[in-house]
């Protein structure tokens, strides 16, 4: 049976992109979409969705309040929070309001599909950024084991080169891409891994077996 999905986001282009993405999945059916919090209540009543993908910042009624009302009326509806922010307060407030999952818009594509999959199985899901921001709260003062970040194949390749001591220009030559693109990859890797210099990157690469121990 198809999961019925309601899309609530005031950004139309983004909403349409999501709709296209979700409609690729035969298991999903987008039953309605809106950009207004108050509409969400009405459409929920009218369409009885299984899942509501709820933007946190919406005109009319914001995502948090809307979620609270939706959950109060239809406790069975699973709410996935969609937000441009991943500040701890937003994540916690959404979760407290009843959201089962929290996904940042930047990572909306794959992460949203994962979230839908999780909530369908009644499991909660936090995208990596959201998880990172609430880790402190979840585990006292942030001692929890970090979820191993997922690097793309390209990023692993760049990291391998960085760890063997190549400069960005040399790596760019090796990979036939622009040096600035290599810089972009580097920044993304460092951000994902929460590392701040080449020495830390190299150490990480050795520990994870991306390069051999010299």
């Amino acid at each position: 049976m198809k999961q019925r999905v309601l899309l609530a986001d005031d950004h139309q282009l983004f909403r349409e992109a999501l709709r296209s993405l979700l409609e690729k999945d035969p298991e999903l059916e987008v039953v309605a979409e809106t950009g207004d919090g108050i509409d969400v209540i009405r459409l929920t009543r009218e369409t009885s969705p299984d899942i509501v993908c709820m933007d946190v910042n919406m005109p009319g009624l914001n995502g948090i309040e809307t979620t609270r009302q939706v959950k109060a009326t239809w406790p069975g509806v699973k709410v996935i929070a969609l937000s441009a922010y991943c500040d701890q307060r937003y994540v916690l407030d959404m979760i407290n309001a009843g959201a089962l999952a929290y996904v940042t818009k930047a990572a909306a594509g794959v992460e949203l599909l994962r979230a839908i999959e999780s909530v369908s199985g009644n499991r909660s899901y936090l995208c990596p950024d959201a998880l990172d921001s609430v880790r402190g709260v979840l585990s006292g003062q942030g001692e929890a084991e970090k979820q191993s970040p997922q690097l793309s194949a390209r990023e692993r390749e760049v990291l391998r080169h960085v760890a063997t001591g190549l400069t960005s220009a040399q790596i760019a030559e090796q990979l036939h891409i622009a040096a600035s693109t290599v810089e972009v990859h580097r920044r993304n890797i460092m951000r994902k891994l929460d590392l701040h210099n080449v020495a830390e990157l190299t150490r990480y690469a050795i520990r994870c077996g991306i390069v051999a121990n010299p």
Partner: protein
Amino acid sequence: MPAGPRAEASRRRRATFFGVVAVVISGTIAATAYTQWRLRAEAISRQLDAAMMYARNFEDHLTLSLDVLDITVRHVGAEGGEFEHYADALRSAPYLRSLSLLGADGKTIVASSNPRNVGVRVEPRSFQPATSGPLEILRVGPPWIGRDFHEGRPVSTARPEPAETTGFIAILRQVHHDEQRWAALVAAVNPGYFINHYSRGVMPEAGMVDLLRYDGMLLLSTDEGRHPGSQAGNERIVGQIDRQESGQYVEEGDEGRAVLVAYRASRYYPFIVVVRLDKARALAAWREEAKRTAAIVSLALLAALSLAGLYYRRLERTAREHEAVEAELKLRGTALGVAANAIVITDRDGSVKWANPAFCDLSGYALDETLGRNLRELLKSGRHAAEFYADMWDTILAGKVWQGEIINRRKDGSLFHEDQTITPVRDASGAIREFIAVKQDITQRKASEARMEELSRHLVTLQEGSRRRLSGELHDRTSPNLAAIRINLDILAAALPAHQASDLHARLEDTRALIEDTAASIREICSDLRPAVLDYAGLPAALDSYAHQFSRRTGIVVRVDCHGCAARLPPDLETVFFRVAQEGLTNCAKHARAERVNLSLRQSGGKVVLNVTDDGVGFASARPGTSAQGSGLGIVIMRELVEFSGGRFALESRPGNGTHIHVEIEIGKVQK
């Protein structure tokens, strides 16, 4: 200061001084000269008197001698022509050389000494005074040259003889023998006797004594250079003798040698005694005295002049100093007068003693309206608490300087702000006598400060507003756009045929990375601009969130402690604290090379306190604006933000010891 008047005054003083000196010198010289002239005249007069005394003395002696001669001759003549009698008479008269009796024909008939004289003719007519008949008086003949009548001859005016030639003076007396007969006796008088006598009285070098006949013929002289028989040099005496028996005068002699002359005629006999004293010698004592006096006067004058010179120099120096002091005082007075700052001098009670024009301009009172009146009643606005005024008076009465801003009232009742410095002035005993108040009208400054503050606050508000808008725009539009692009890219990638997908796989992955990087940078920018969570959830949440992102970005460990602080504070205050924390953390990342930062937010009794402490390199906090780290502007902005909110900002940093920022703001004080 123009040099003209001072130079003029100096010149006048110098002229006066030299004038007085010249008068004193010439006066002294004149007085001295006059005195000397008087002394000289006195000396001459005294010497003339001395000459006269000699003359009288000698005349007395002469007259006495001639009296004796007269008696002798009369006696001898009465006795008749006995040689023994003559010899006897000669023995008792040392000045008589011989006595001779003349016969009626004028020839000698009896001679007392040399018998050869007998028969020598003596011409009675050559005797003076000339008489027509026989008279019983002594008559004087011309001086004779030679020992006696026999071998001598009488000299005449035409043929005077040198004095050294031994000679004698012939004196004739006719003696009445009986009724009919007259005899003439001629005495040869020894001039040496008189010369000796005179020389004992008048030393030859001091002068000379002459004996003249009435007709001026020189009979004898103590001066060997004068020739008996001559009449030279006696004309004046001869001319006067009829009228004056004695006299004295100064005679200019040959070769400029003046002599003091005194003469006296014999009372009974035709002789004149003339005493001539050398004037130069007579004045020698005076001259010595005059020289000494001149020397003493010169020395005294010199000393007086030196003293006067010293006195003048001192006077001049004092005058210069006085002028300089006066000029200085005038300059200062002028400076005070034209000073832009209002300056008032009051007595101990606050009554105005002096005020400058600037004070009058400031207060609106004319100068004479303020003099003697108490500054309190003139200016007090009452806008300050009584303690404020009490504290001010306590300070200045304790002898300390009071400096502060005060609101005062003008004459027209309007209020003004002034920056006032009151300095107590002590007298020599240390007691406070006056106060000097220097005031500056800062009403405008206050107004512009208030305006500046207003503008700055407005600017901050505007800036925050535009940051918020920009942040919102990026969040609400740019980020979702990127997210949509990413999703679309994924959809496109999925839609690619398998063989193409593998070719483009790497390219797609690069594009995804670009999108991801762009999204991350937008997140960071938004977070810096204006974190949405600050408006949504308040300061503690925003600080937590910002610190978290900051740590991820920089690797610097940030410990945030917001326990004991309310979730929500007044929005303006939240902004200020967030900005300060943000600026502080940015400084840590950019300059401090810190590894750990502690950030704590506390609230107690309406006061919110933020502390940001790092373990970085620190800097010399005295000159944060010029520190090598270049963090000055950030600190200035932080400080201004806090102070505009009525709070207190303190920064403490020492090289090597990290930096500590302390901010506290009272919630109630936040100005809207």
